[in-house]
């Protein structure tokens, strides 16, 4: 098992796979939009000053934006 870290520390262009999501804090809407354990995501955009993060979800080919405040509860590994 690889080391996992918070999604928000990834830089633009980095690709990672979601390992765990803190279900107690992250709303189910995130799951509905395809942010699930096992999904591979690529950081596409980051708004300045810790603004939203734009993620490309690989298997569904969609671009989704989330806030840093939820990204810190999503753990990924490269």
């Amino acid at each position, binding site marked *: 098992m690889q080391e996992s870290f918070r999604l928000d520390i990834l830089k633009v262009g980095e690709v990672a796979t979601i390992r765990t999501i803190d279900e107690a804090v992250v*709303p189910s809407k*995130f799951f*509905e939009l395809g942010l699930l354990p096992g999904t591979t995501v690529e950081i596409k955009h980051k708004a300045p000053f*810790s603004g939203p993060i734009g993620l490309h979800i690989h298997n569904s*080919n969609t671009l989704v934006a989330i*806030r840093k405040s*939820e990204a810190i509860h999503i753990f990924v590994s490269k």
Partner: protein
Amino acid sequence: MTNPIIALLGNPNVGKTSLFNRITKLHQKVGNYPGITVEKREGTLKSGNKTYTIVDLPGTYTLFPTSLDEEIVFNTLADKSNKFYPDLVVVVAEPNNLTRSIILYQQARELGLQAIFVINMIDEVAAKGLDIDYNKLESYLQCHVYTTDARNGKGIKELIRAFDDRPGTYTGGFNIGSDYATIMEEAKGLFPLLTEYQTWQFVAQDKISFLSKELNDAILALRAKHQLTASNLQKHEVVRRHKTVDKNTEAIISKIENKHLTKTNVIDKYLLHPVFGYIVFFLILFFTFQLVFTLSTPIMDWIDENFSALIAYTSTVLPDGPISDLITQGLLAGIGGIVIFIPQIAILFLLVSLMEETGYMSRVVFLMDRWLRPYGLNGKSVIPLISGIGCAVPAIMSARNIENTKERLLTMLVTPFMTCAARLPIYIVLIGLVIPDETFMGIGLQGLVLTLLYVLGVVAALVSAWGLNLVIKSEHKSFLIFELPSYKTPDWKNVITNIWDKTSSFIFGAGKIILAMSVILWVLGSFGPNDKFSEAQKYVQQANPILEGAHLEEKIASFKLEHSFLGYIGMGIEPLVEPLGYDWKMGIGLVSSFAAREVFVATMATVYSLGENVDIEDEGQRETLLSRMRSEINRNTGLPAYNLASGVSLLLFYAFAMQCMSTIATVKRETGSWKWTIFQTVMMTGVAYIFAFIAYQTLK
């Protein structure tokens, strides 16, 4: 027999609305769902000898609602006694993301609904790098799969023929799993008549508005007993379904490189760039408002001229008397006051719906969220706030897609501070009166003041949001997740229907009130409670025996107004508005414009021209009014009624005060609470009073 009801169900951004427009050929009406103001798009379709009712449900990802719009979807599909419970659900998908659409389709089928599956935007299959095995997909979904392209009408005929499809019973689907066996066993006692999945749906919903309080409480108690939350159950289903559907469709859908997204990526490199992105956004904003004003000005001038001509013509045709006055000064002037706003509203919504259609609006949310969050707002608040520059009514309605209750409430409470189109005529008239037409460091002073008033609106909205954020408690944690759809060329049909919906809601919603107020005002100003009004000439001549000619006429006119119903109301509130630097005539303007701000200008015109023969053909109506207002003396101070101090005070009053019955009505409908509605009105008008008071007392 009632018409079969066909409901369109789908994720956002799948082109569902385009499809709806194609199917109904624009035979549609936009109304509201009973009791709440989620837009209800309903249309009819005649095909052969049958008529179908088509309902366009709001876009949703699953049947678990997180916003009002999504709640409608669940209520329509899960409640068999719902008026729009469909005979057939058409699940609309787009080729890029079939998994999410399949999940929605399965949920609908397992709830016991008849459904067919449509892949819209089929022309993009190749561009999106996909290959779909339709035969396999049909047997997997246990229904016919149709393909359409709503933009060019491809496949629509075939789809309409399928409206009599009833695919029958659906087998298989969601396996709840052993972890939840006990809670499900107990839940069956609550819903003895339902299938297993229906029961599961009810147990996994936060709150079900169509069930009794007892049942809701029972569900709540059941979950509490098992130490589960609705969110736990929802996530469980969503994760399971995603996994299964992804696995099952592996052999059905094959993917190569997505060319579409590549193009979107290239555009986003610029539009979401930390620096250029904001430059582009502010340029777009700047051009939007430039366009709104420059494009609408000639049209508004044209309407103004023609209405004046029409009023003048009507008054020459009709015999003199109260009926003629009612028609020209009450009715026609009122209609003119509504029509004049149409160009601005239409152009604003043209640009807003273009931003929505192309997919740029989500980018705005992405760019702006960081800057609005500190004020307790959400990136999605940008849309209501920006639309508030047009009219607060549609703007407040557009706050619906904000999931978080508190952020939605905050957005609705502060949006009316934004400088709406109705404030503009007041600003223009007042600035023309009290701000000198000079330049300061090469900048026109009048234009500068107007700009400052717009900035003031934004500042007031943000500061009050910040303050309210500290006071109002949140029910849910704030979160934000939204899709950035790939860029598309706009579907003009959608743009045009959207403009029509918004403009007509202004004409028939706010317009009604404006018209009614104009007529009421005319009546109040044309009649008085005692003989001082009817016998004005006698009283005036008795008091001033030496007056004659034009001076006498003027004196009589103002005496009449003073003793009309309107005059008595104005004088009644004079003590209240005197500290702000207003006289009773301006008081009348304030009272009447409580209905709608734009009424102020019309009222002032009525107040100052009642009993006078305004020769419109001889001079422009506005100039007449301006010069009339300039010469007006405040009888309390002996100074011109519109001097710098009272003018600035009045400008500030209108910048802050909740002077709009349509907005109040909308807020009541949207918040569902009189408490918040009254709070907002009192807060805004209170702030307005304080600022106007300070301004007048320091400047006088």
